Every structure is written in structure tokens, then in C-alpha cells.
């Protein structure tokens, strides 16, 4: 096992608001991590900084010992909360674009998954249902051989069957030397899939433990604990 993510005193402010507050975090390979917290707790900000899309005000992030930049971006596969793909492109063209962009992209894996879904490569992305758009984005994201997969709300807004598909696709494609970070509010759906749980509150990690430890010690589900900790 190796450390894929290391943050030291990481801080991000938007004006007078502190989104991420002096965050120290270390994540090892071979884990699927649930990044959980109420709205505005800093989940997306953290994910965007790991992906190199936002610059911290202070502190440091290392992705597999690399500082954020060209080299780290080559190691992080990011699935945004809102779709960022050019929606006029055909599915097949998107695969080609990913192939051009990312050295670690395995096009055969992408084609195999698209075939399983029975999706026509000539269809434009715009013409797909919401569920299928989410699936295509995830397939593109998970077809990279990345060190860290940052998935921001991958199962929000799709039906339960599509959620199962998405979670299974994550399980199928991540490997022992990578780390998957999933941010979501649908805790119940991901409880069985994740190893580790991070509770984020006002930009700080207030809990960093495993699902089994929570169940063993507190005799409750992660979902129930979340409701207790973040009760308003």
C-alpha cells in the first residue's frame, strides 16, 4: 500500500468564507473513500483542488508524491458534479477525445462497457437520457488507469437501477494501487461499497474511520451516524 493523497494544512478561502480549513489528510491506495458532509462543507472544493482545478490559498497537496500540476493531473481522473463534456459530440468522438487527452485512457475498456450498455456510438451525447449521460461520463472517467478517481456526486439524480450500475462499474474498474473518492449525499446507497468514511464539516475532517468500525462500535449505519452528527 502506498499513500496516494497527502494534504498538509490545506486551506481555501472564497473572500471571507473559509471553504477548506487547515486540512491534513492522508489516503492510501486500494481504498474506496466516501467523502460525506452537508451542503457547503467543502466536498467539491476539496475535490477540485485535488484535481488541480482550484488553487489553495495555503498548504500543500501531493498526489502520489507529485505537487499539483501537469504530472499530478495525469494521475487524477475527475468526474464533475455538472457535466463538462461538449454535448454536441457523438459518444464515439468523446472516446477519441479522451484517448487524445489522457495517456492512461484504455479505449478498449471504454468500448467494452459502452457495448454492454447497448449504446450507439453514433448517438450525440445531448440525445441521451440523463441516466445514460451519467453512465457515459463515468465510463470515460473509470476507463483511465489513474491513481486517484475523484467522483463528485456520481449517483445523484439517477434512478436506483442506474445507481447500482454506476457503483458496480466503480467496483469493477478500480484497482489495488488506486484510491477512489466518492462525494455524495446518498449514503445508504454507497455504504456497502466504500471502505473508509470521511465526515467533512466546515472545511475540516471531523471523522476519518472505516464503515465496519462505525457499525461495530456504534452499532449503527453510516447513514444513521451522519443524521446524528449533522442534525439541524
Amino acid at each position, binding site marked *: 500500500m502506498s499513500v496516494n493523497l497527502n494534504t498538509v494544512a490545506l486551506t481555501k478561502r472564497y473572500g471571507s468564507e473559509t471553504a477548506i480549513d487547515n486540512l491534513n489528510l492522508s489516503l492510501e491506495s*486500494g*481504498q*474506496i473513500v466516501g467523502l460525506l458532509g452537508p451542503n457547503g462543507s467543502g466536498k467539491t472544493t476539496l475535490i477540485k483542488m485535488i484535481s488541480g482545478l482550484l488553487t489553495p490559498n495555503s498548504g500543500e497537496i501531493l498526489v502520489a508524491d507529485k505537487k499539483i500540476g501537469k504530472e499530478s493531473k495525469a494521475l487524477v481522473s475527475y468526474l464533475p458534479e455538472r457535466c463538462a463534456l461538449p454535448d454536441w459530440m457523438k459518444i464515439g468522438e468523446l472516446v477519441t477525445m479522451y484517448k487524445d487527452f489522457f495517456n492512461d485512457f484504455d479505449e478498449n475498456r471504454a468500448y467494452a462497457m459502452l457495448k454492454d450498455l447497448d449504446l450507439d456510438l453514433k448517438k450525440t451525447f445531448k440525445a441521451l437520457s440523463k441516466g445514460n449521460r451519467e453512465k457515459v461520463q463515468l465510463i470515460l472517467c473509470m476507463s483511465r488507469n489513474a491513481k486517484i478517481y475523484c467522483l463528485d456526486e456520481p449517483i445523484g439524480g439517477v434512478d436506483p437501477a442506474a445507481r*447500482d450500475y454506476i*457503483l*458496480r462499474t466503480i*467496483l*469493477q474498474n478500480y484497482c489495488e494501487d488506486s484510491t477512489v473518492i466518492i462525494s455524495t449525499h446518498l449514503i*445508504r446507497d454507497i*455504504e*456497502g*461499497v*466504500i*471502505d473508509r468514511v470521511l465526515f467533512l464539516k466546515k472545511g475540516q475532517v471531523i471523522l476519518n474511520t472505516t*464503515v*465496519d468500525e462505525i*457499525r*461495530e462500535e456504534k*452499532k*449503527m*449505519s453510516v*447513514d*444513521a451516524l451522519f443524521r446524528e452528527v449533522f442534525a439541524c
Partner: protein
Amino acid sequence: MWEFTNDRPIYLQLIEQIKLRVINGTYKPGDKVPSVREIAMEAGVNPNTVQRAFLELERSGILSTQRTLGRFVTDKETDIQNNRDDMAKEQVEIFVGKMKELGLSGEDVIRLVQAYLNEEGK
């Protein structure tokens, strides 16, 4: 089908369900069991959790690993018998506990079970 409740560690539930499959013959003595990844996909759970359950099952002798070949169900019938007895005993404990909560005596329990079995046997 794999089903999990929310209040207990998933690896413990996996152990129970795999044991049950061995006891009821879904996985037969000496058979190869599915790989970590196969079970993870089938059950929709984390591979590390399956791995943890497998290690526990190996320690208790229900499964054994043969290098490069995979994992196999024990071919010792006595091991399987013992596990069946243990699981049955656990269920009896739970059942008798509930009967006592209802204020029933040991004889009452036996009488009720006998009556139920007679009824079911008809």
C-alpha cells in the same frame, strides 16, 4: 442473492452468508468458490470487505487457499457439520431468549415446538 442489514459490519454478514451456502450445499465440499472480485461484484460490496471475510473463513477452516488455484470449500464433512451445529445453536439461543421474554418455561417451548412440527408434518 446477498442481502445486508445496516447495523452490523458487512464482513460479518458476508461470513454468515458464505457459511450458509457451504452448509446448505450451494458451495459443495471441495468446490472452488468465486473469487474476491466476483463476489464483490455480485454482492455490490467492496473487495476489501470480501477479502476480510475470506480470511476469517480460512482461519475457521471452512475455506482454504491453494496458491494460484484459488479458494476451495473444505472437504472435511466434520468441519461443515460443526459449523451447522454452531449456527443452529445460535438460532436456538435467539429463539429461546424470545420465548423467555414472553414468559414461557422450557416445557412450554418444547410443547409449542412439538405442536408446530406435528402441524407442519400433516
